[in-house]
């Protein structure tokens, strides 16, 4: 197990390295000069070739690409000082660069964006389980009934609609057309500043949209796993012993059925944490996804780089974590 985790970690680091290299190269060899965006911004579009030259020189874009990549990596571990034209910016470890737009260290801004995205992820994921698991269990208990069939097909229907359209319609109709009071002002409001109610009501619609959409999948998984679990021998034994149905279903059946659900949940939670661009864009929640979208539009290269790396790291970690947890929950799985 330990060896496995180490192996996975090594391959994770390798992936992150490759991803960061790919992003680095992409910008380096992208068509316009990598210094062009900051030069335009700093000079209010008075970026003459001579000035562009200054920016390229101070940002190190005249060095070979591997030298600069080395500096970037060095910055992550020990921090560095970044020079832009004649201004110097201190960037402590782990240094992900300085935003071209705000001149703040990217790391600090990243940290300040995490609560919004985390709020989405925690609420959305909670609703996945809250809706998904009980409905799935109920459907499995009544397998084959009309209710079960109706449920399965209606959930299949919902999950077949592109998510962003579902979210967009939810927002347009509930917030704009019907002006439902609870949903009137979507967005991220920090608990510490605006209080828990404002935070809750700002997030609620996004959670509901995510929850309703995402729970269909959990229902399917739970139902499938429950159906399988309930046909196992030990359940038959339990039935033969005369245990009450409730005990059989919840204590014996559900416990076994939850294992695959937990794994999916872990990965989904990671995906949500890694940035929910559509959710944030539609419900105007200024988290990491929103930030990334803004950065791409504003050509804020250090931020784009940081968001992509952040997402990759989160995904790799959540995958690893899930595999480990899976092996603990289900003794049949042996990691190698």
């Amino acid at each position, binding site marked *: 197990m330990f060896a496995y985790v180490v192996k996975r970690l090594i391959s994770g680091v390798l992936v992150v390295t490759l991803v960061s290299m790919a992003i680095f190269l992409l910008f380096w060899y992208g068509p*316009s000069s990598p210094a*062009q*965006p900051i030069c*335009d*911004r*700093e*000079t*209010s*579009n*008075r*970026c*003459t*070739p001579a*000035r562009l030259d*200054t920016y390229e020189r101070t940002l190190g874009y005249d060095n070979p690409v591997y030298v600069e990549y080395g500096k970037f990596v060095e910055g992550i571990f020990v921090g560095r000082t970044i020079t832009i*034209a*004649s*201004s*110097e*910016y201190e960037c402590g470890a782990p240094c992900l660069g300085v935003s071209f*737009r*705000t*001149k*703040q260290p990217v790391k600090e801004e990243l940290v300040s964006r995490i609560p919004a995205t985390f709020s989405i992820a925690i609420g959305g994921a909670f609703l996945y389980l809250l809706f998904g698991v009980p409905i799935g269990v109920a459907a499995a208990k009544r397998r084959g009934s009309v209710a079960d069939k109706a449920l399965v097909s209606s959930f299949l229907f919902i999950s077949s609609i592109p998510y962003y359209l579902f979210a967009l319609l939810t927002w347009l109709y509930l917030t704009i057309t019907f002006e439902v009071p609870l949903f009137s002002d979507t967005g991220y409001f920090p608990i510490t500043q605006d209080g828990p109610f404002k935070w809750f009501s700002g997030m609620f619609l996004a959670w509901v949209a995510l929850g309703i959409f995402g729970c269909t999948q959990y229902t399917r998984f739970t139902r499938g796993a429950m159906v399988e679990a309930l046909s196992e021998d030990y359940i038959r034994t339990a039935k033969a012993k005369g245990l009450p149905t409730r005990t059989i279903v919840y204590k014996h059946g559900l416990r076994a059925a939850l294992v695959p659900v937990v794994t999916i949940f872990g990965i989904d939670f990671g995906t949500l944490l890694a940035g929910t661009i559509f959710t944030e864009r539609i419900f*105007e929640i200024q988290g990491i996804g929103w930030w990334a979208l803004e950065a791409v*539009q*504003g*050509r804020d290269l250090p931020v784009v780089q940081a968001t992509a790396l952040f997402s990759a790291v989160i995904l790799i970690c959540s995958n690893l974590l899930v595999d480990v947890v899976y092996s603990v929950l289900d003794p049949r799985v042996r990691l190698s």
Partner: protein
Amino acid sequence: MKRNKPLALVAGAALLTLAACGGGSSDDGDNGGGTDRTFGDQEGGTKDAERQGPAAEIEGAAAGGTITVYLPGDPGPDTLDPTAGWSVTGNSIQQALTSRSLTQYVRDEEGQPVLVPDLATDLGTANEDYTEWTFTIRDDATWEDGQPVTAEEVAFGICRSLDSDAFPSGAGTEYSKTYFEGAADYEGPYTGKDPKCENWSGISVEGQDITISMATPFPDMDYWGAFMAMGPAPLGNASKPPNYGTKPLSNGPYKVDSYKPNEELVLVKNDQWSADSDPGRHQYADEFVFKFNQDQAKVDEIMLSDNSDSQTAVSTGLGSDKYNDANSQLGDRLVQQTSQCVATLTPDYTKITDVNVRKALAYAYPYEDVWIAGGQVPGVTRIPANSVMPPGMAGKKDFQVDGEQITYDPEKSKELLAEAGYGDEPYPITMVFYEVDPLAVAAQDQITKGFEAGGFSVKAIPVQDSPYNVWLDPDNKVNKKLNLRGVSWCSDWPAGSTMLPPLLKGGAVYNTALFDEASVNDEMDNIATLPLEEQADAWGALDEKIMTEYFPIIPTAFLNDLFVFGSKIGNPTGDGSIGAPNYKDLYVMQ
């Protein structure tokens, strides 16, 4: 002066393409049962060197309250360093509230801006040929920490504006560098490693008097003095960039409480500011909160709802789709203000050499259609233009190149092309458009449609960042292919010298037409040496001469801004000098 938002890249790009209809300003607002409104036009050129503090009280004004300003689609300034600012957003806020300079504007009863003294006791005195200006710094102005603002600090602030590497976006790169003596060779206090500014000889301080020597005659120094770059900066490391830009020391009625770039700027009362020392500013509200990068639609909803949030709020923009509602609902609280900007198309003077072809382009441009597709309201946010000097600028002549306003007329365009000898085949036009903004794309579709109907063939090249990148870079491979460019330009002060030379002098950076006529260049140099009272008319005459003789630039529209004020904001007016709400005179009704 240009706006500094990335969407202002959009604005910049769109401005090229978005123009107004043939309606004219007389019929604007006359729809939907709304109020007939007149523009906050400006006559320009009025000065009052005698004005002393305190500024006259606004009738009915009350103290207290918080004013929230929404800036839709505008990320605001990247830095608050007064020397680095050259944007409508940043300068309008800081010059009105936090950062004083040599001179300033106040709004008179008719809504016209008047140039009055600020940190100087008057508007400065120049020698005969405007090569030396002396300003006397008043002794009663203070910083937010209570220390007096000294003449040395003002001189140091002015010296900073010469550091074009440390402040590449600053207006000093254009004016200080061009006009001040020895400025061209001086790298500035930071880049030149001259922290006390000892190596620049162009400025001298004697007691409270500051004397600036000019390399070339600079009759507009008093206007230039109204820029916050011409204000004080604490000596030494206290004002070192970039750190100073996050929390500059205030000397106006408000000081920076918190500042998150691209998000929010909170200003609170500066209790060290004394009204007696300032002829132009007030300190009514307790607090100003500027919210940048707001969503236009959301702000429109808030402002039109008149809920408790919006009653003490101001918005610096209004979506064109909301104009009808706003016009009928808001009355005086919707303010239209000329922004002193012109949008132009610039045919390459070296490639399109026949004036008839340039005029044909002007007739083939579907003004109203471009404008609607680009999300503007004809006759309201865009009005037809006859020349590059915006309406109301001192000396501006009311002439029309062809006797009447040029409007979309493809037949006339074809005739002109035939006259020029291009009647048989479509005349090829190559231009760029900003692809990222759907509105700019839609506007380009209209332009292409109009040009093709007028006898041209159009190759429109999409670009992913500001078209200015292409237009301003002589080595750009796309730029070399273009024969039609564009530029939107706003005046920095109400004089022709901030419009004509930057756009039409041979070799000027923003002369994207590459227009270069020796006689015009000489005339521009000559005007600067004329007696001050003759200059305005001379610029106006030159404007007319250029347009009628050469027609090197196609003015497509003059730009107007719309501001929305909450129902509890007192004195809802615009600032005619800069195209922003009149922050100096706002108050919250109690």
